[in-house]
């Protein structure tokens, strides 16, 4: 029941239960079968998303806080960057050195005012290994200090440094005498004497804060504790420092611990649940923070003298695997049970706490998840004041962010937002169009076969140039974008992500296109190599065309193919370019007269003017003069090249003799 799986809970709260009673039995069966199908349909994606959530926690692919619609999750600002200097880093380090080098604990004296302060005792609890004779684990409690801490202080007034602080020596964590210590935990005991403030009564709840160092600790008291007598109330809370695997559980940070009355003091491990029992009723885990008393404190490990064992090496998530189940919850813990169901149970409490709800400072936003299957509402689940994603328990803090997250991260479902007087209704249905196709960077799959999704650490990937700073014009976030579109069908069918979300291939080799090859179109040449070769061989096949003509024709064909001339009026330009590009070659191969014949022929076709012939030949002469020692070798070359030409022509046409004649073409 405690949030083990959505599906299980889904079965508990069928929205159509009322309807089910009214219909007759044969229909009942059908409905049940339908319901079974509904559950099956939702089970698979839900399980997938739960798995992905876990994987993302262990090895995140990205951080949610970097997403634009989750910017509020990013606690720090970049404001400091503007004024940042390297020297500042040194100062920070120096300041840190000044700290005491033992675990420092902080609640302490501020005022002895009876109304405004309570006494806090912190004990270090060591659970030792059982010895043969022991029935249960020997437990040692070492008091570390007792301080008066303010109750419900005004957070504005408290100054840093004025808070009481406590110190726990690292020696305490050393293996001690006879007993092997299994785990260490901190036990907070807050005792308060005297009558309750009338104020508290009026409010139905007193907001009392315990001030601890930087962070004020707030202690809320349930209104049900309205015992009038001069009794001493004691609240306790326990937090594990090292679990039995000697893993550090408490890292530096601010903590808020919910306290429990002494009578139902720390639940023993065997009964560990995620729920807290308050006033004999089960409270969902996070309700304790808004309903019950809490203690805020800041914890800092100082120095590294405490040795390796205490060094805060454990990843935050390591806690997830720890077997020690402390009954308390910390905000750092990533455990969040499926909230939608848990919240449901809250509604039962609603009667008893009506007055609280009324005077609650912020209004609770209710979100109704309505699960649709076959266009029928199958289940409605309400989440109250809870903007966590039901599938990955990510706290989205805002309705817009939640919707955006749902839509982008859980595309196996279709989410439609419907405004609701009490908050929002989200219609959840299965996305039939979801095809599971990969929508990430396609290069990741192919560029590094085997390494692509290596989770063994950073791996060098093929270099991809991305624009790092991109500020697209974003439309103002508006909930209206999640409303069901009127002509929605087409929109739904198209993948939500557009762009190049697939891997492309070279059309010639079928090899994957590497990212750096995206830009140029390798297969778009006007003159692919085979075509250049083809035009040459085709001309070579002629038996009644001499080798000089062939050579000029080939040169010209390649020239035209390269530049792709299409108009008559380009020809003058084309000729000049031809002379420019191939002039030297023509001279070296001794083809000037053939070149001239070509020009004259072009003129006969009305494509060039005589002026162009003149200019082209003048350019050729000019190139000839610029060519080094062409004059001296001219004569030899004439003979050699002509001979070579002939030889070439013969060898190249040897096998194709008699294949084609130009005269056959004109017939």
């Amino acid at each position, binding site marked *: 029941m405690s949030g083990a799986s959505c599906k299980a809970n889904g079965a508990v709260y069928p929205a159509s239960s009322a309807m089910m009673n009214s219909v007759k039995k044969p229909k009942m069966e059908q409905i049940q079968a339908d319901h079974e199908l509904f559950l099956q349909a939702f089970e698979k994606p839900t399980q997938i998303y739960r798995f992905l959530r876990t994987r993302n926690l262990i090895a995140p692919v990205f951080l949610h806080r970097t997403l634009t619609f989750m910017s509020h999750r990013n606690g720090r600002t970049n404001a400091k960057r503007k004024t940042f200097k390297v020297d500042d880093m040194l100062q920070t380090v120096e300041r840190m050195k000044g700290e005491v080098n033992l675990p420092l604990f902080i609640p302490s004296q501020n005022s002895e005012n009876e109304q405004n302060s309570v006494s806090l005792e912190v004990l270090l609890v060591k659970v030792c290994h059982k010895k043969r004779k022991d029935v249960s684990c020997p437990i040692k409690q070492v008091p570390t200090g007792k301080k008066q801490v303010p109750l419900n202080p005004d957070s504005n007034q408290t100054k840093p440094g004025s808070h009481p602080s406590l110190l726990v020596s690292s020696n305490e964590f050393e293996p001690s005498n006879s007993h092997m210590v299994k785990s260490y935990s901190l036990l907070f005991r807050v005792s308060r004497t005297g009558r309750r403030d009338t104020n508290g009564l009026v409010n139905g709840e007193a907001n009392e804060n315990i001030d601890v160092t930087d962070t004020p600790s707030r202690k809320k008291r349930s209104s049900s504790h309205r015992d009038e007598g001069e009794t001493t109330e004691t609240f306790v809370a326990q937090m594990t420092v090292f679990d039995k695997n000697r893993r550090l559980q408490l890292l530096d940070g601010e903590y808020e611990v919910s306290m429990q009355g002494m009578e139902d003091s720390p639940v023993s491990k065997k009964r560990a649940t995620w729920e807290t029992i308050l006033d004999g009723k089960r409270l969902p885990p996070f309700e304790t923070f808004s309903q019950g008393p809490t203690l805020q404190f800041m914890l800092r490990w100082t120095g590294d003298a405490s040795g390796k064992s205490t060094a805060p090496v454990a990843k935050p998530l390591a806690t997830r695997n720890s077997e020690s189940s402390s009954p308390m919850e910390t905000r750092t813990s990533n455990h969040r049970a499926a909230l939608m169901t848990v919240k449901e149970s809250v509604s039962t409490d609603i009667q008893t706490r009506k007055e609280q709800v009324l005077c609650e400072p912020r209004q609770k936003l209710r979100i109704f998840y309505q699960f649709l299957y076959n266009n029928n509402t199958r289940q409605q689940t309400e989440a109250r004041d809870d903007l966590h994603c039901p599938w990955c328990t990510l706290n989205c803090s805002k309705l817009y962010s939640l919707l955006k997250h749902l839509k982008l991260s859980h595309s196996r479902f279709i989410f439609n937002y419907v405004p609701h007087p009490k908050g929002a209704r989200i219609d959840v249905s299965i996305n039939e169009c979801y095809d599971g196709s990969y929508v990430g960077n396609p290069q990741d799959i192919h560029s590094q076969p085997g390494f692509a999704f290596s989770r063994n650490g950073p791996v060098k990937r093929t270099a991809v140039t991305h624009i790092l700073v991109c500020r697209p014009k974003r439309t103002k976030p508006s909930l209206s974008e999640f409303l069901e579109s009127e002509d929605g069908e087409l929109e739904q069918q198209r993948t939500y992500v557009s762009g*190049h979300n697939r891997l492309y291939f070279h059309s010639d080799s079928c090899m994957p296109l590497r990212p750096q090859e995206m830009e140029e179109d390798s297969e778009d040449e006007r003159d692919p190599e085979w075509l250049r070769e083809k035009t040459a061989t085709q*001309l070579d096949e002629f038996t009644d065309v001499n080798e000089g003509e062939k050579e000029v024709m080939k040169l010209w064909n390649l020239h035209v193919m390269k530049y792709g001339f299409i108009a008559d009026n380009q020809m003058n330009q084309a000729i000049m370019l031809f002379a420019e590009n191939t002039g030297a070659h023509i001279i070296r191969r001794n083809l000037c007269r*053939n070149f001239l014949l070509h020009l004259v022929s072009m003129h006969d076709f009305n494509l060039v003017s005589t002026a162009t012939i003149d200019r082209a030949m003048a350019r050729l002469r000019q190139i000839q003069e610029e060519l080094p020692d062409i004059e001296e070798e001219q004569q030899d070359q004439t003979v050699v090249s002509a001979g070579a030409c002939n*030889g070439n022509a013969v060898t190249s046409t040897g096998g194709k003799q008699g294949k084609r004649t130009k005269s056959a073409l004109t017939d």
Partner: protein
Amino acid sequence: MFNTNRQKIMDRTDILNQEWKTRRIQPVHIMTSVGSLRGTREVIPLKTLNAVASVPVMYSWSPLQQNFMVEDETVLHNIPYMGDEILDQDGTFIEELIKNYDGKVHGDRECGFINDEIFVELVSALSQYSDNEDDEEEEEHDFKVEKMELCEGKEHPEDPPALISLSVCLSVCLSVRYKELTEQQLPGALPPECTPNIDGPNARSVQREQSLHSFHTLFCRRCFKYDCFLHPFHATPNTYKRKNLENQVDTKPCGLDCYMYLVQVSQRSFIHSFIKYHSSVNCCSPSSVSVFTIFTSIKQMGGKNSSFVRGNSRCQTPVKMKLTGEAEAVEWSGAEASLFRVLIGTYYDNFCAIARLIGTKTCRQVYEFRVKESSIIARAPAEDEDTPPRKKKRKHRLWATHCRKIQLKKDGSSNHVYNYQPCDHPRQPCDSSCPCVTAQNFCEKFCQCSSECQNRFPGCRCKAQCNTKQCPCYLAVRECDPDLCLTCGAADHWDSKNVSCKNCSIQRGAKKHLLLAPSDVAGWGIFIKEPVQKNEFISEYCGEIISQDEADRRGKVYDKYMCSFLFNLNNDFVVDATRKGNKIRFANHSVNPNCYAKVMMVNGDHRIGIFAKRAIQTGEELFFDYR
């Protein structure tokens, strides 16, 4: 052995890892040590490679950006393999296929085992072993017998069946044949019809037509290429008329030795008087009339005007005398003479220019040679006298009728579109007998008819983008002709893609960047890299141009393969992108496509353009309706 191999692998890996370390790439792990092969347990790190999805089948094809015309295949090139099942099931299919080609399949030699090539090779190989002629004869004789045995029952071109055992006769036949074949291959020896290379040592003095014959016959006036891939029949230029007489005689002598000094002295007075007369009779501008035109026309007009006959005879005699007196004995090589004849047909009597182009002779020598050759040289064509200068008004009227005609054509005619072939019917207007008219095509700039032909498309005069039916080109499903449409920008900005005219994309090859990937539908698909607007040009559908008959034959095979790249171009031809094509061939069929195909007349050729039917986003797959 194993250990040495092992050592090699280790070394290589070390080198690789060293290199990768510098590039920070995850190193390769190989099992650390094998040690002894016996007894010890060996540990090998297991590396799993991610599965890579296989790509769809692709049959090889050649990239092409312009259509390529191929002839009909007379033999079946290969018997298509479609898997054993199909062959078993449907044996008749292959038979029918072979029947389509009259039973000819590639590889069946028509003349037994030995063709000319093999024969020559064989003989020359055998002749190495014999020193004298007799031996060779014998060898050939033996060989012949062998051959007879080999090609038993098969007809051989060199051995008529009548000669059964007359091996002596045969050997003589063969030796003759061998000599024929080998003589052809002697270096430098060319078939008699081939003009020798004008730049080569064997250049001969030939007539102009002969010198230019290759260039004229092989040049494609439509592709600007020699022996182009697209147009099998080329028109020779001799019927092309000169648009304007651009020959201008250099008015200034080119140097001290210029021929003009020769002519000037004796003829100045005469020429002036002649030009006066000539311009009064004819409306030629004096500058455009060449000196030799004058001479020749004088000769012709002799009958008309007796005074000119007298003038002619009176004047020419001294000139001739003078020339013969001064002429130096200059040796004209064959190449120079040929070149001269070529150039005189273009430059007429601009001897300075001719001399400049020949390069090895002065203009005086050229002039003298000209005089010697005067009998055979054509005169410059006179201006067309039968076309009176046209008024602009008439032109406009012509254009208006054209627009009407286009409209009519569009409404009236059926869907039959015929291939365009430039018309060539000298001295006959383009009437109902003109092939262009009968095929309901416009005459193009490639036609031999006059530029005033009624059937010519006049081009557009748009100043806009030519992408609405306001543009007559667009209306006639033609791309703007850069030689006709001079205002829309189709003739500007050759090197940039920014052309104001949007109706010239196919000819310019302004295609979009396409990317190939496995399709979301079937097989391969083609995806667009950048978003496009509605009606924007995406790519031309290129391929082999084959006849309808050939398409029928090929289509049979393609239908069996369930994969066809055939695309009807017009009534005569089909584009087949199976063997040659461009990437758009991978676009799949859809009944709800995002592209459409349009066959357009592009500078005389029908070409298939693929256009966007709606706005298309980045990375979308392209589809068009095949039907």
